[in-house]
């Protein structure tokens, strides 16, 4: 197995993982602070991608498209939070799952109603397209590299926000004891709306960024949503650090498993059977990983409370 291929696949895994992190960070914040399971997070991802594709189609500017994606997802997030989610904080998880499942149906079909069933296309801007040569002569698509850097930058900014600012302190306090910070004069419902908007904007951003390498279509959010759930469960719900590590683990396991498991199986099986069983195992790999993590640590790697 050539080293170039291995490095390429590791980069692919990192890129996938870091995009998952953008989704998972919002989910884990929303769960950590408000105790809410938000299945509709995938819809916000989709809204971001559609907004970006529309704005890019109208203006031709990729940066404007990204801003539009974050704005549209944040606005949708705030609306949903104020109209629906707000009523769900005090209910049990079952109601939350159902209500946000209902939101998925509404958002998906609504988008289909407006944009039709055909996928839209969002092009990688010219200045990011084409390959770039890395150390050791590896050719790698520049855009994917940009994704990794953007993701890392967002992760860093989020870390600063949570650990170094007043709002971050309030968010962390809200996670630990919501009555106490309400008693200290923090407007808890404003804080909740803010956290929800932040999570939504991150989902929208990742939808737009990934939308440029995949097609923008209805239902694009749900597979990512499930993966993001796997990520936050592995990392421990509520922990941003856990989400980052979980996301990278999931991204790398999925990407490397898909490439290398069939190869490894070929060492002791006939090629055809190895291909089949290798890719079967690879597609289950992250769920197996999650199962093992939960059996080992029932609250995830960095989770604290059950």
């Amino acid at each position: 197995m050539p080293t170039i291929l291995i490095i390429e696949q590791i980069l692919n895994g990192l890129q996938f993982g870091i995009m998952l992190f953008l989704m998972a960070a919002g989910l884990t914040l929303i769960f950590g602070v408000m105790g809410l399971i938000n299945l509709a997070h995938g819809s916000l991802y989709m809204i971001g991608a559609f907004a970006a594709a529309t704005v890019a189609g109208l203006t031709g500017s990729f940066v404007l498209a990204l801003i539009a994606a974050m704005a549209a997802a944040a606005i949708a997030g705030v609306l949903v939070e104020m109209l629906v989610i707000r009523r769900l904080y005090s209910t049990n998880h079952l109601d939350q799952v159902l209500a946000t499942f209902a939101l998925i149906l509404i958002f998906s079909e609504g988008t289909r109603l407006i944009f039709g069933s055909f996928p839209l296309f969002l092009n990688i801007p010219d200045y990011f397209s084409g390959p770039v040569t890395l150390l050791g002569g590896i050719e790698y698509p520049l855009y994917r590299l940009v994704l990794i850097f953007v993701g890392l930058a967002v992760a860093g900014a989020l870390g600063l926000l949570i650990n170094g600012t007043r709002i971050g302190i309030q968010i962390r306090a809200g996670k630990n004891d919501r009555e106490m910070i309400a008693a200290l004069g923090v407007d808890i419902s404003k804080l909740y709306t803010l956290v929800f908007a932040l999570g939504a904007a991150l989902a929208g951003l990742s939808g737009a960024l990934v939308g440029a390498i995949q097609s923008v279509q209805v239902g694009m959010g749900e597979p990512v949503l499930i993966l993001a759930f796997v990520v936050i469960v592995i990392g421990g719900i509520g922990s941003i650090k856990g989400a980052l590590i979980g996301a990278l683990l999931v991204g790398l396991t999925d990407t490397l498993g898909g490439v290398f498991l069939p190869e490894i199986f070929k060492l002791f099986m006939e090629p055809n059977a190895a291909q089949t069983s290798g890719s079967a195992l690879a597609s289950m790999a992250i769920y197996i990983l999650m199962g093992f993590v939960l059996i080992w640590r029932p609250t995830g790697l960095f989770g604290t409370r059950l």
Partner: protein
Amino acid sequence: MIRERNLNALVLILLFTVPIWAFFNDQPFTITLATRAVIFALAAVGLNICLGLGGLVSFGHAVFFGIGGYAMGILAHHAQTYTPLMEAPFLIEGTKSMPVIWLVAMITSAFAALFIGMLSLRTAGVYFIMITLAFGQMLYFFSISWTSYGGEDGLSIYVRNEFPGINTLVPVNFFIICFVILCLVVALNAFIKKSPFGLALNSARQVPQRVLTVGLNPTHLKLVAFVISGVITGLAGALFADLNRFVSPTMFSWQTSGEIMIFIILGGVARLCGPIIGAVTFVMLEHFLGGISDFWHIYLGILLLVIVLFAPGGLVGLITGRGISHD
């Protein structure tokens, strides 16, 4: 306001008479719709045992639905191609006999539920929801890549399986088989609810410590509930595959798990006939709204949202005027 007991009777009578009426008026499609509703109801009654009584929010019951479906698909596939399922160490042939298929579906589901339950019950709350979801996804992807049984395309069975003494090719006969099973399972559910096991399970959901202090293990109670629930949903899966004469990985998908949960919420959690009312309503909505608009999921979504937000007891709670049955 109608008493819940009367409502239950009314629902079962209506669910039985409408297809019989359809049979005499030569409306086979109505019979198929009713059979679909009955099978969905069966799956949801199964889930309601662990969700309603045990408080275990399983987001992975599609696992058992799919296992039941594939048990039927695989056995019938081998029977229709005249190939043995297994030659060594001993010969296993495929079969077209419904009772045998049901038995296989139920036993396989029981083992799957025991395995999944033992691992998942180490966690609780959201983690339980997520780990059951993960098992569902695992089997979903496995079934997609399992090419010897159709992979992504699924398996088609050309002729419906046989039940001794009954011609299952007549739609109304198959409906009656499914309906009788549903009634038996509902009766079993009512029995469990009142039995010492059901009472213990109920308190294990509310205050596990109390159950511990009287010397019972709440986790074991929940595990048993999970297995019973999985077995019933597995049986529903086998019937569903027989109704469509087709199995595909969709039966394992997380949307299937979500839909089974929707039936319960729509009808009313922990109600005896809640899942039945939910499943019938869902199938009717699917049929009528689907006929009006391609975008009927929007209306379904809005309806669900309204029910979750404003009628926490589901339709049964709304009709009987009693908000929720417990908690």
